[in-house]
């Protein structure tokens, strides 16, 4: 088991807002899980707990059978070997594409080759000297993906990666991302509010509403047998 999330609870604003209520799930190496929910359902909080950008109120998170977050233990994000593609890409505006990608692998001896490799993977080999603002939205998205993949993370998290793109680009990138993740055999968590994205990319799916897990399982099985209510409506909306 690569990732195990056990009965995680998180509240904000002095326990007035419950962001996550006893959420549990697990993920095997090489699998992709989609976390689906509306904004405010708790999906962003969940991945922030996994990356170590927030601390849990209760519950345990294990990475490779090692506790990284619990009531008494907290491992800082820089020691977790988890990669993330941010919703707004979070590219460093004062660095070139090359510097952005090499940022996470500065200790690697062959970092030049590695940057070339991942840039080729995302199809942007000619852009390494450009600055982020000189690229289109879709290209920035690819750079963000390349940067997250460069250090070979155990786990890659994609936070609503396509939400800032138009429909045509979105379909194109969805295919590319799926290919890249499978090619590199990356274990990934894919956060989205779009059920179509989830069905196309993921092996497993987890549906969140108001901090509670409504249903989880193999994507195909959930698709065929959705629970009554929100999950069913969600799949019918396609």
């Amino acid at each position, binding site marked *: 088991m690569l990732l195990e999330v056990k009965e995680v609870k998180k509240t904000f604003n002095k326990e007035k807002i419950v962001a996550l209520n006893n959420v549990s799930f697990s993920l095997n190496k090489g699998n992709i899980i989609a976390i689906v929910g509306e904004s405010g359902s708790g999906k962003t909080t969940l991945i922030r707990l996994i990356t170590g950008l927030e601390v849990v109120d209760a519950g345990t998170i294990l990475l490779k059978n090692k506790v990284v977050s619990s009531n008494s233990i907290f491992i800082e994000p820089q020691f977790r070997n*988890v990669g993330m593609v941010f919703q707004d890409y979070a590219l*460093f*505006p004062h660095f070139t594409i090359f510097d952005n990608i090499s940022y996470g692998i500065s200790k690697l001896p062959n970092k030049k080759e590695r940057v070339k490799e991942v840039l080729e993977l995302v199809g942007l080999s000619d852009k390494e000297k450009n600055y982020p603002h000189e690229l289109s939205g879709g290209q920035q998205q690819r750079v963000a993906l390349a940067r997250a993949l460069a250090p070979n993370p155990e786990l890659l998290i994609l936070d609503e990666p396509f939400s800032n793109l138009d429909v045509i680009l979105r379909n194109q990138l969805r295919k590319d991302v799926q290919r890249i993740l499978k090619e590199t055999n990356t274990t990934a968590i894919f956060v989205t509010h779009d059920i179509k994205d989830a069905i196309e990319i993921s092996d497993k799916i987890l549906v969140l509403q108001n901090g509670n897990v409504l249903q989880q399982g193999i994507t195909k099985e959930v698709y065929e047998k959705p629970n009554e209510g929100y999950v069913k409506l969600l799949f019918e909306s396609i």
Partner: protein
Amino acid sequence: MFICSFWLKIKIIRIQIIHILLVIRTLHNKQPLKYSIKNIQRDTNKWSIFLLTIVLFVAIPILTVFINLIYGPGETWNHLVVNLLPNYVENSLLLIFGTSILTLFFGVSSAWIVSRYCIPLRKQLEWLLILPLAIPSYITAYAYAGIFDYGGIVEKILGIRVDVMNHLGLIFVLSISLYPYVYVASRAFFLNQSNNIIEASKLLGAGEKKTFFKLILPLARPAYIGGLILVLMEVLNDYGAAKYYGINTFTTGIFRAWFSLEEPETAIYLSAILVIIIFLLITIEKWQRRKIGYFNATKNHQKVKIELISNKLKIGFFTIAFIPVLFGFLLPLFQLLYWAFLTYKEVFTFDFIYLSLESLGVAMISAFCTVFFALLLIFLSKWNRLSSMKSIAKIGVLGYAIPGAVIAIGVLIPTLSLDKWFVLFMKSVCNIKVGFIINGTILVLVYAYIVRFLAVAYNPIESNELKFGNSLSEASKILGNSNISTFIRIEYPLLKPAIFSAFILVFVDVMKELPLTLILKPYHINTLAVKAYEYASDELIAEAALPSLFIVLTGIIPILFLNRLIAKES
């Protein structure tokens, strides 16, 4: 060995913090105690301890004032309460009341006119109206004393003599030099205001006048009251102007108790009352802003349109907007230039150049240290994971509300006892006779400047930090970088402009600062502000013009810079 004991101490402090926080936390929420202990232990990191140290360091002066209240007031306190205190309270209230009315009038009317109407020189007036801020109010006070003096401009041109060295004169001088705080706040509000709301009001049949008084004025209230609070803090902080005009206020009272009566206890009691008045003002301001949400109801807005008006109105509005510039900036500046022209031969000596360089040097060192502490406060509180510590960190920026004289006393008392303790220690343990090592040096002065101006550096850096969001630093950490390396590689390069402007703002404030400097400056070091004050106190007011002009000059540059920032942000 030393390092070992240091770490041991940190461990002990850590445990103590955990206990205190535990009590706070269990009072607040219903979580089982077992979890609370573990959570706090987990979330307390080394940054939390550093942060607490920094906050304590800058909170010492204000804590000192309140802790020392327990020793009781000095011998003359009863005399002071009966004979002088009513006068201080009356004068201070009168100043607050008078300057409130005048600054609101000058500030709001001129801001509305330049934001709304097509008057001659509109673009120029927009920034000219800020310039009075470049002249410290005590210097404006000196200039007006000259303008209305025997043989001054007023007597020469109008043939009448008016005495300005009284309450009304002081109210006028403070208002004309401080109204820009209200102007800047109101103008920023008007620039961000949507035109739709004005058009809606017009379509509903309200005229220009009714729209302004019924709609714009109430809507802009949080903005101009916010500016007014800054004005009142400056009024209560003022020493130079009140002293020169012979009006007794709390601040002059503190000086008197400290220097003439030599009663620190009495000075502390006066300081405490003054601080309480200021906190009352701040509370009122917070209260009036409680419903701020509805003031920005419209999100995407068209800017307020510039209205074309008749020539008659143009002249009228121009006059209203020009009067503050004329009286707040041009006239005092002219008077200073005239005096400087008369006296530069005697004043502009080698000593004066040396003094100017010294003054610039002190301001630079202080600005550098203040910005450094502001960065520490911002980033340590970001790196620390205890939410309760984050709110404690806010105490660090309270200094700007506390008058300079109060901070000076709060700094003097603990540093003096530290020095005395050190002298005793050296004498008894090492048998060496030493003098004071902190007092009488620039250290104390710089420390006090840091405490007083921390907020000036903190605010621009923090608002910029919030603007570029958290995701860049988070991305950096996820990519394997520590907090410090993230700061060096990502946050510092991106924040450089904000850090620079923070530096400039503090620099200018230090250049202008008078009451705190007067109390704390080392014997052998002088600043331009103190020099100007000394000349004026010796009735050599014309000689005070040259150092004053130097201060004004350094003040103009960042104000123009600030103006561009406001225009850009809108």
